[in-house]
């Protein structure tokens, strides 16, 4: 790759790229991320849609907030279980809305640590806003 083809203006995310300089030498340059420069808006759109769809599932009682954050943070059941130090079978239960209220405070804290949020923040998604009420209108 020639230096001129690798130079991308994206101050939000800088990366190191190895390129061919004019004298033929290969050297690192500090440049911008191609995908962040061109497609960050698309990432944010998809993220918003995912959050909305998961929140809808939480509010309609299909899944628990633990499931919400597990999917958002791209974790598998085994990975979450290993990271939180909670048996897989228990985590599986905790992903269901029906068992969420039985989770002790200390266990919630273990999950919150993995998700890097506070327990109150984790519970915030259970609060229905007016926007959610519109989204939750299933026509019944």
């Amino acid at each position, binding site marked *: 790759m020639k230096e001129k083809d690798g130079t991308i203006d994206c101050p939000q995310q800088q990366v*190191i790229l190895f*390129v061919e300089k004019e004298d033929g030498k290969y050297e690192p340059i500090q440049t911008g991320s191609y*995908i962040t420069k061109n497609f960050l808006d698309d*990432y944010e759109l998809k993220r918003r849609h995912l959050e909305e769809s998961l929140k809808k599932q939480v509010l309609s009682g299909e899944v628990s907030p633990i499931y919400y954050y597990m999917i958002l943070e791209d974790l598998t059941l*085994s990975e979450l279980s290993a990271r939180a130090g909670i048996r897989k079978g228990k985590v599986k239960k905790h992903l269901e809305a029906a068992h969420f209220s039985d989770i002790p405070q200390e266990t919630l804290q273990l999950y919150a640590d993995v998700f890097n949020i506070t327990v109150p923040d984790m519970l915030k998604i259970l609060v229905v806003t007016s926007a959610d009420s519109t989204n939750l209108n299933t026509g019944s």
Partner: protein
Amino acid sequence: MSTIPYKHKMAAHCESGAVTSLLNNAGLDISEPLVFGISSGIFFGYFHKMKSFAFPTFIVRNKPGSIRTNLAKRLGIKFHTEKFRNPDEGMKRLDELLEKNIPVAVQVDFFYMDYLPEWERVHINVHFIVVVGKTGPKYIVSDSYFPNLVELESSSLRKARFAGGSMSPQGFLFYPEYIPKEIDYKKAILKGTKKACFFMLKIPIPFVGIKGIRMFAKKIVEWPSFARDTEHLSHEIMKINILLEDQGTGGAGFRFMYATFLQQASVILGKPEWSELSKEMMEIGDGWREISLFAARIGKNRELGPERLKELGTMLNGRADVEERFFRRLRNSI
């Protein structure tokens, strides 16, 4: 405690970057591409179904940790390493080393590096940073992926060093404790290259090396069956670009950095044919870059039908063919 004088430099990759920067700061003049090449960093592995990954994925570098171990073995450098069961002990030990003015590399879960933008941060337990000081509750960190030295909350560093899950860091830390005065780079380069050729051509594992690229090419058409919906598939397809370009590779899935290694090695070894091979590797990298751009484009446009995925598969098979020829020639030139 204050900051240890430390020359921070961005690098292509976190592990080769941390190792290079520690060695540079300890007085050894070695480039990141040489570290990467000598430690047989170039690689390919495809993982279709694994418990720890929520979606099929691939890697373009060797096993985490082996850049340090291979380099140490081949150059005669000794790194002091430690792991901890107890987080308090692990944090205390780090502080003690910093008190002694020793910059220390630590293994962390990338997710807790809160100085990086949210869209970059994923749970991956094999990120490496160098800690160079502490001011109050914050550590001063040299991260290859960030332009300057940066502060990280003590609580975030603790969570990151003691995250559980696959390849959990267990507080792992290292720093160089012995660097030989005389180093035989020639022998180390040849050994590292030989091993890289073995991994790319000969290793009898169906998802590693050239075989791994071919498996990826074949299996990519199955990706829609793992996706929740089109947007999820689009996200995963666009991640091909991120894994090849943004997640610390120096571009084109490490192929540009490997080309640079070969160019530098051709001078050290006095092998002009390696200069030709380095040009070839740069062109191979251009092909990987096309794959990255193609993946980003079809993901963004939601053109994710079987035809497009087959096209992506054909492009990947093209890389497998050229890399197979390339690594055979490289192997024969040793």
